[in-house]
């Protein structure tokens, strides 16, 4: 039991991301309402972003913005700065997630205008009527 607890404390960032990802996956699969599915998708994306950003963290390190190096070149030690790559990748991911969310919302508005509902079972009923 203490082993498991120690494991959780040492790696709580991964546990957090797994829990969030499963919440998002559950919402995407099980919810009936399209907007709730979209919210689930956003939670899933946020979990991935948290995962990557937490990978980039290093203990006792600071932001990857190099200060006061105009005098002494070659004095930059990678261990003093957190990993910039996950941040760059996640900047991309956030932007793409905003774009996909915008388009998905636009589609949802169109679906509502056409069928007057966003519930999936009702949509299926309307579609089979025609």
């Amino acid at each position, binding site marked *: 039991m203490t082993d498991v607890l120690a494991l959780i404390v040492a790696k709580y960032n991964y546990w957090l991301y797994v829990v969030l990802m499963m919440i998002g996956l559950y919402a995407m699969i099980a919810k009936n309402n399209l907007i709730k599915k979209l919210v689930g998708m956003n939670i899933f994306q946020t979990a991935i972003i948290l995962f990557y950003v937490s*990978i980039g963290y290093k*203990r006792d390190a600071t932001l990857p*913005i*190099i200060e006061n190096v105009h005098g002494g070149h070659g004095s*930059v030690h*990678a*261990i003093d700065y957190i990993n910039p790559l996950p941040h760059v990748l996640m900047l991309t991911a956030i932007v793409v997630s905003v774009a996909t969310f915008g388009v998905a919302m*636009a589609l949802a*508005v169109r679906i509502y205008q056409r069928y007057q509902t966003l519930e999936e079972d009702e949509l299926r009923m309307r579609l089979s009527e025609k």
Partner: protein
Amino acid sequence: MLLYGTGEFPDWGDPYSPASVHLSNDYLEKAFDQTQVPNIVTAVLADYRGFDTMFETAVIFTAGLACFLLLRDFREKEERFYRHTATGVILHVKDSQKVLLVEREFEYMDKDWVPSDLIIKTVCRILIPFIQIYGLYVIAHGDFSPGGGFQGGVILGSSLILLAISYNLKTLMRRVKEKILGIYAAIGVLIYVGIAVICMPMGGNFLDYSTLAPLLPSDPHHVRALGMLGVEIGVGIAVTAVMVIIYVNIVSAGRHDEGL
């Protein structure tokens, strides 16, 4: 199963985790010498991964375009509501062909109009210029401190959205025309691509900012930083315009007359 898998993952904050030992150390140690940009995130984003960011801007532009194409509705409303500004009497006009011409006395209004709250309007009116200045600051400081085109663009865009929320959508659309928004979104992408293309006749590769040195009146060492700044400005303009396009199209269901 995923939870079981975390047992094999590196510890929280481990400086020798696999993600932090190969390429990222090279970036951290060499990026400043190679690009003269202190903010490594921006250096990687706009220089080493310039292509990625360019097409990301294109993705943003495409998202705005998709929202516009899906939702925009140019038909006129059947019924309109006008309010007499002096007395508050509301006129309900059923025939859309009849447009009231006495603009001074009558105000074209939303269907369910509620008087705007004075406190909210005043606070937003005071806040919005500061938010916009802050957004410009974030865009301009992308290479020397935390900031960048995407973040600054979102702040600028949200200041415009705040205007639409605190007043109403018509106030925003009177100030920022739809055509202007579309043109700005395209200009932003074109600034990025333009800077990238200019590098080619100057004798370098696509997106090789160092070849811009003869064009810019500054220290040749800082040319890469200036190139990145130009690119970030392009990104900022595109993101601002697309944010507003997406918001306006979604809240008014494409009619651009009333909404949240």
